[in-house]
């Protein structure tokens, strides 16, 4: 049993379980599944700076901060107790391309060749970790949600704006992954 759990879970196991988060949060306390709002609550709690967007009673939304703290703990437990000892299996074409950028380490889910403390001293590392983070924070709030709030919760509730947003997420990702990263990764 534990051996099976330690293997990477197939999509048809993981996807439905992720989907069940939607009714779980609704039934437990009438909460709409969403994660990027936690970043807003953290801003409101730490540095509201008199900005109207951050002037609200974030304490009433504290459930969301408990939820993301739980995700962090879940990551810790899965990595410490349930992790798959083998390297990450990737598509042969991707691996072939990655070699040309010097990405050859498949030990962790987060590639150590790209996301490591020393990488922060390189232009590539700064663009990917700092620039990427800024885009994630700014973009999700501008769009009013992330993959969980729009693609999963919004689509589950048949929201047309969420469909448009999800298509935009994918379009943005396709552009950068195919047209920008091949140059950026060579830096």
């Amino acid at each position: 049993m534990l051996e099976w759990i330690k293997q990477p879970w197939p999509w048809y196991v993981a996807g439905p379980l992720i989907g069940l988060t939607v009714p779980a949060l609704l039934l437990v306390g009438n909460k709409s599944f969403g994660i990027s709002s936690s970043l807003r609550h953290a801003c409101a709690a730490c540095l509201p700076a008199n900005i109207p967007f951050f002037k609200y009673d974030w304490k009433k939304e504290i459930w969301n901060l408990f939820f993301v703290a739980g995700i962090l703990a879940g990551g810790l437990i899965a990595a410490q107790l349930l992790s798959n000892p083998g390297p990450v299996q990737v598509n042969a074409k991707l691996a072939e391309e990655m070699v040309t950028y010097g990405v050859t380490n498949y030990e962790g889910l987060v590639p150590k060749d790209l996301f490591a403390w020393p990488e922060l001293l390189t232009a590539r590392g700064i663009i990917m970790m700092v620039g990427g983070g800024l885009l994630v924070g700014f973009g999700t709030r501008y769009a009013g949600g992330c993959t969980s709030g729009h693609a999963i919760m919004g689509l589950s509730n048949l929201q047309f704006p969420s469909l448009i947003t999800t298509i935009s997420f994918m379009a943005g990702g396709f552009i950068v992954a195919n047209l920008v990263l091949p140059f950026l990764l060579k830096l």
Partner: protein
Amino acid sequence: MNLNTQEPISEKKHHEFLTENTDFEVRSLDAVCFNESELNHPWWYNFKYAIAGLLFGVILVKAEVISWFRIQEMFRLQSFHMYGVIGSAVAVGMLSVFIIKKFKIKTIYNEPIEFVDKKLNKGNIYGGLLFGFGWALTGACPGPLFAQIGSGATVIIVTLFSALVGTWIYGYFREKLPH
């Protein structure tokens, strides 16, 4: 018995309030506040959300959703995995929401479950594209950022902090941005 007469009023109030604002997040926040005001649970009741988050985090790691490589495969159409995960999650979510609405299922505290309609604005497209750029770069959306840090990739703290700064910058320039 009284509940039956009170419910439509709260519903109406709720929606009047919601039409005032175009930002879904603000509306949902206010909507939640509206609900929360009726219940005064001690703070530790929130631990049930931490447990839900913990299970969610384990799934993200075990399905390798937090892997930069899986995200690259998705955007290069080199693997069905991520499409399968998101697609089946949406299918289960849709069915759940349908059942909750159809049978008017209440929360475990016997409160009605509410849904808020989102209103389309330009931010859905502009913000969506910008997040898409960031998603391809970092290989993570906000949920996986937390799970990546938990799984031991400590440098992702920098990415999470940048995302917080990005959110703050959005709040600062919000009035000047097209919506």
